């Protein structure tokens, strides 16, 4: 029982980080119809930028994160939208899928060229201590990760539901034509979504890179986990992607311990295939209407 609780906690903590990545992914899809196959690389690269700044400038993790954040916003928010999404989005989602796959390979190989193929140590944000109480043991670092991720998720939800800009973004996501008629600057709303996604992946990079080591091909696994979380939970709802993230994290941890640690990533994939076959709109999503 104690082990179960511990695994559950660890699963929820990593799941919260997957949720951050998946929510950004779902937001891009909702407001602009972009399916970002480079999302995993968007998490991998800021990790390396932080490491690079730390060694170049000799600063700590937190200052380096603060410098990295605007760089990420510019690269993965602004430039990504202007250079890749804007020219391609009018051709439908397929060319954009190909282009983001190309972008993913570009980022991966570029990182390998600059930083090498070896995994690099990435400092933990919090010291990992095990707390014992009432017969259960919980890792402090898991608790802290969970706390940060949950705070960001709550802030994002408040922003989306309570502020004017947030509600305009939701209107854009639901029906961009009507939103435009209502006088909402749709293009600006889409840009804000891209910036939010860039911020989310940078935070995710800060939180998750320590447990993976910084490595050029981290994006493959992380991207796959984020896609799975978004689809399992429901692609067309932020709430769905959130719950999907937690679900994937828990399933992965429990499956690895109780069934087989070698097949760790297999459990979410099997869940993904089942969900797509039997409830393609996701466990918590709305069905998408068919055209014609």
């Amino acid at each position, binding site marked *: 029982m104690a082990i179960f609780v511990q695994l559950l906690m660890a699963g929820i903590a990593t799941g919260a980080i997957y949720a951050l990545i998946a929510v950004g992914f779902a937001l891009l899809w909702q407001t602009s119809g972009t*399916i970002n196959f480079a999302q995993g690389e968007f998490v991998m690269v800021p990790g390396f930028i932080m490491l690079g700044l730390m060694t170049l400038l000799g600063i700590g993790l937190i200052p380096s994160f603060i410098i990295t954040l605007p760089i990420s916003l510019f690269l993965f928010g602004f430039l990504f939208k202007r250079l*890749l999404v804007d*020219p*391609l989005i009018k*051709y439908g*989602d*397929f*060319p954009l*899928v*190909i*282009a983001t*796959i*190309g*972008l*993913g*390979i*570009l980022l991966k*190989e*570029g990182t*390998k*060229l600059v930083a090498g193929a070896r995994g690099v140590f990435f400092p933990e944000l919090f010291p990992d201590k095990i707390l014992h109480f009432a017969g259960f043991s919980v890792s402090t670092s898991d608790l802290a990760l969970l706390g940060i991720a949950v705070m960001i998720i709550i802030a994002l939800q408040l922003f989306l539901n309570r502020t004017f800009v947030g509600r305009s973004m939701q209107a854009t996501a639901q029906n961009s034509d009507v939103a435009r008629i209502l006088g909402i600057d749709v293009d600006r709303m889409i840009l804000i979504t891209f910036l939010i996604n860039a911020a989310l992946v940078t935070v995710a990079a800060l939180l998750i890179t320590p447990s993976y080591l910084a490595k050029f*091909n981290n994006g*493959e696994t992380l991207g*796959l986990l984020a*896609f*799975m979380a978004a*689809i399992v939970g429901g692609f067309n709802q932020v709430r769905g992607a959130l719950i999907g993230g937690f679900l994937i994290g828990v399933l992965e941890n429990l499956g690895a311990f109780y069934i*087989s640690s*070698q*097949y760790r*990533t*297999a459990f979410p*994939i*099997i869940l*993904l*295939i089942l969900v*797509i*076959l039997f409830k*393609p709109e996701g466990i918590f999503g709305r069905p998408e209407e068919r055209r*014609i």
Partner: protein
Amino acid sequence: MTDKSSNIDQSIQGATLAEDTSSRILRILGLVILAIVIIALLFAPKYLGSYGLYLLSFWAVTTIAVQGLNLVMGYAGKISLAQAAFMGIGAYTSTLLIQGTGMNYWVGLVSATIVCMLIGALIGFPALRVKGHYLAFVTLGFNELVILVLRNEDQWTNGPIGIMNINRPSIFGFSLFEADRFYYFCFGMLILVSLAMGYMIRSPWGRAFKALRDNPDRAESLGLSTTTYTLIAFAIGSGLAGIAGAMHAPMVEFIDPQSFGLHRSLLFLLMVMVGGRGTLAGPFIGVFFAILLPEWLRFTEDYYLIIFSIFVILLIIFFPQGVAGIGPYLQKRFSSNQQKEAI
């Protein structure tokens, strides 16, 4: 009034005439290029060392796999990110059967193809229910599952280390050990597969695939069964990957799970796009750009992938139809200019 309409008639005639001549010129040009390429490939062993021949064999094998993916993506209009996994299934099935039972190479190759076709048809089932990006993720997940099995079931697959010292077979009592002989084998297989593919695309099946891609609702209302044709496309496309896998194993003389990972599936997809999906020449061009060109330009693989991916992104932005789409694009430009002159 009559003047005007006859004028329009004339200009339409002029336009179709211009289109006819320009498309005829392009077709003749295409045939000439094809002839030159085939002759060059036939005489390649005279001028290339064993490494050059290995590369050309590699090109031929990859082209077979990419032709399969092109059938699924370009003709049936379904996305698949599991082509490398099918190649892996083909490579492991044939190798394990041949090493385990000592069976004939051809029997191993055919068994690998059949196994891939069956699993491919199974993967086709989700394709019936979901479309677009969902299918991309199902196939992507499947690719990852296959790699996990290959890596972890080491009593059969020897795990992450892979299987070494795979023998090159003899066919009809003729050993393929030498690089030039193996090259001719790959070249012959490529021609066989391409002829079969060309024949199929022109057959009623091929037309059905295109109809389902361009307008599924209309095709179905005309009595075409989406179910049957989607499953056929997936089965044949995966079967070609199986053939390519069964050829890949003796070519490299080594297989491991990593060679068939997601990374490779993504590259296959880019090769289809670069060549131009839904065209017969597409896979040849796409694989040429991905495998042969970097060697001639003397790039290392890592460096080249960066250039290749930038190239793909620019290509998608400027020519969404791929390199093979540039020909028809120029033709259209050319004939529309003529049209303007005629009017």
